[in-house]
């Protein structure tokens, strides 16, 4: 009996020791949301993949990478809340009459976070590196040369006019890094990048993608009022909402539309809704199969009640889509006459094709987004009305992009986005077969291509508006995809947090955040 007791004691001791050990290893990061005395730390929950790379020219385009590095490094010009482009590291600029020479006058009192001075040599280096490396958002302007005639001037010489230059220059890929990356190689430098922005890298776990940004106390536009922002990854949408409501996180990106009323009614948090450049679309495989016939595509478009669909699947946070260009994009023409909801016309159109009487097809959709799933189901219902029997294939992210990217599908419900507020960018992704196969629809139309080229070659506002209006009408007739819903970006904000700025591309400005209890 005594020996047995000793063994039991030994096991108990072992268990206790293990518990103590693991406790030590896991309790290292106990940060409070906002210290009453001392440091003010804001916790910002992101969904999906965390921050894996801070190099603006990385090959992989991950939203959370782009929207974290833009708080550390800054471009010459910046996208503003109203969608227009304003000055940032360049205080002013002018363009020559022939549209071929852009001259940027740089701010002269800017320092990098390591204390070194920012000047045109840094700008020149950053643009040359961009030209050399390319990355996920390579320079698309027809550049002849870059010049830095003096310390506060930067000149871009083009071979032909390019209207989207400012919009391009405001994106994350065009941020300015110190000349020669301070002598480091890119991998080393971007572990803790030096920039002119309001924040610097604190702690960063590359595998979980969680990162803490510390305030740059010497930020040239004035230090941020919070001391740090901690980005955490919360994959589960239920966790996201509950952590926001319990105050464990202060800001929650991408809250589900279905949780809107729960958050608003809680009395402890609210949701900031901002029109975005994101839109839900129904994409067709326009090359293989029945949807190669644009009349069949038009029948599908007319069979779908986009107003009811949007209301039902976004809890009223979305807007029914008309043009493929969301209203927040420049020259979006919301009066475009896209085939509206009309079941009889849809049936008549379908019956005029070789598919009269209906057919069976399949629709792929990425799992994990409740709105996407609901839209797929709604479309299945609408198309059944005109005799099209849709089977839904819900795929995880990797499988979806594998199928969609290889155009191995008939119908797909997917979210499309733009990098800039200029229509040329979204038009390029969605309609240019040479970029990504016209957003994997295979759509190829010579008239569309010619209008897109014209849209970039002229800088006259009225002319551009006219060109893009024609383009939108043409696309509404040809329908490589049906625009379903313009998505609002939904960010949950705990009460007591103020000063959040949300931009149309979905990124945020955090330098003005304040915390009060």
């Amino acid at each position, binding site marked *: 009996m005594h*020996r*047995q007791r000793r*063994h*039991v004691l030994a*096991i108990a001791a072992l*268990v206790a020791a*293990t*518990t103590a050990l*693991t*406790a030590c*290893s*896991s*309790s*290292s*990061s*106990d*940060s409070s949301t906002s210290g009453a005395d001392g440091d003010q730390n804001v*916790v910002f929950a992101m969904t999906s993949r965390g921050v*894996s790379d801070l190099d603006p020219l990385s*090959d*992989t*385009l*991950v939203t959370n990478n782009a929207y974290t590095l833009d708080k550390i490094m800054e471009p010459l010009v910046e996208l503003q809340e109203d969608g227009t482009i304003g000055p940032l590291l360049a205080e002013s600029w002018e363009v020559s009459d022939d549209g071929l020479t852009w001259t940027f006058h740089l701010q002269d009192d800017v320092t990098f976070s390591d204390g070194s001075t920012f000047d045109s040599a840094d700008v020149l280096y950053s643009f040359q590196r961009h030209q050399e490396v390319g990355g*996920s958002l390579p320079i698309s302007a027809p550049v002849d040369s870059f010049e830095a005639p003096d310390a506060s001037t930067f000149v871009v010489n083009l071979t032909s006019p390019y209207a989207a230059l400012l919009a391009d220059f405001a994106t994350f890929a065009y941020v300015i890094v110190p000349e020669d990356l301070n002598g480091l190689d890119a991998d080393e430098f971007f572990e803790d990048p030096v920039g002119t922005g309001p924040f610097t890298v604190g702690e960063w*776990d*590359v*595998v*979980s993608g*969680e990162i803490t940004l510390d305030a740059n106390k010497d930020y040239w536009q004035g230090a941020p009022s919070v001391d740090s922002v901690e980005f*955490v990854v*919360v*994959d*589960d949408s*239920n*966790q996201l909402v*509950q*952590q926001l*409501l*319990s105050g*464990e996180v202060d800001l929650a990106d991408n809250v589900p539309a279905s949780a809107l009323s729960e958050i608003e009614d809680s009395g402890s948090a609210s949701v900031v809704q901002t029109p975005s450049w994101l839109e839900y679309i129904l994409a067709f495989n326009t090359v293989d199969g029945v949807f190669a016939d644009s009349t069949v595509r038009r029948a599908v478009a007319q069979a779908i009640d986009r107003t009811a669909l949007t209301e039902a699947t976004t809890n009223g946070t979305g807007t029914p889509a008309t043009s493929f260009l969301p209203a927040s994009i420049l020259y979006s023409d919301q009066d475009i006459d896209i085939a509206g909801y009309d079941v009889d016309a849809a049936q008549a159109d379908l019956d005029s094709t070789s598919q009269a009487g209906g057919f069976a097809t399949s629709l792929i959709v990425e799992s994990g987004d409740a709105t996407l799933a609901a839209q797929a189901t709604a479309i299945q219902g609408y198309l059944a009305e005109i005799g099209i029997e849709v089977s839904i294939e819900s*795929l*995880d*992210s*990797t*499988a*979806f*992009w*594998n*199928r969609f*990217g*290889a155009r191995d599908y008939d119908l797909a419900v997917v979210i499309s986005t733009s990098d800039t507020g200029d229509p040329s960018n979204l038009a390029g*992704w969605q309609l240019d077969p040479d*970029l*990504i*196969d016209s957003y994997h629809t295979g759509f190829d139309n010579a008239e569309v291509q010619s209008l897109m080229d014209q849209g970039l070659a002229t800088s006259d506002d009225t002319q551009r508006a006219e060109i893009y209006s024609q383009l939108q009408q043409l696309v509404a007739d040809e329908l490589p995809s049906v625009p379903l819903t313009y998505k609002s970006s939904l960010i949950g904000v705990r009460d007591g947090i103020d000063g959040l700025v949300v931009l149309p591309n979905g990124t945020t400005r955090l330098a003005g955040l304040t915390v009060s209890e």
Partner: protein
Amino acid sequence: MSSATETPAGARADAPPRRWPRVLAPVLHAVLVMAGVVVASFSLVSLVPGDVATTLLGERASAETIAALRAELGLDRPWLSQLGTFVHTLVTTGGAGDSVVYGIPVKDMIAGRVGVTLTVLVLAIVFAVLISVPLAVLSASHRDRLADHAVRVFTTVSLTAPPFWIGLILILLLSVRLGWFPVGGDRAGFPLSFVLPGLTASLTIAPQLTRSLRLQILEVLDSDFVLTYRAVHYSRARVMVRHVLRNSLLPFVTLLGTNVAYLLGGTLIVERVFDLDGIGSLMFDAISNRDLPTIQGTLLYTAVAVVVVTTLTSVLTNLLDPRLRAR
């Protein structure tokens, strides 16, 4: 569980030449299990549509860039050749190699996460014991009365309720409503962030433990020596704690050991529900990213852990049981 206790004991009684097979057999068994894990997980992942090239390049990649990366990573090679490469890495480095997504050795990623998973696991074992022992004693000592029925209903219900559902209920009740614990994440540190996950995970095995311990106690209660003790006017409580419980605990330890594998599976799901960055979420992300070395690595190390625990359990049982020692 009788075979677990009797086979080694029986072997021990035999002549010394049979000693080596007895040591080698479990090792060989373990190696075979590992090999099975490697091959099975490799085949399963290759059956799942999509591969890591899509993950790495994102949504804007053209078909050509994806094909080029696939070739660079060797993903276009035959299945057997890819498996060969992996086994080669495993044998030469003792690890699963580097994660394709993060470029970091899988071993290092696991080392960074294992603390969280172990904490949940150990807490779950503690909770499982704290829940099942009192419930079993209560139930057995009140056989066929109200308390017994109540415990049996409780175990049936919790057996059928999936752990993630229990987790959500606990979150809504204890975190959201009462605010006693954080909703998720490990930012509140130990123990606050780990109590609910540990409790939830423990409920994946506590019902079985309670039921089997109850049966065990009932069996011992019916034996002659208990009647003798009762006859000499030892108090009911004293007999229960000093004699009945002690005699029933051994099979309980064996059962606990064999259930650790099951518990580990539960822990991995629980991590997801409570937004904890442990081995489970590492594995989940690796699968959705099709990050083959990481999937292989996590599965392999988990399998090793399970095999080690199971082996240790049978060793422990041998040590603890005086009847086996006496031979």
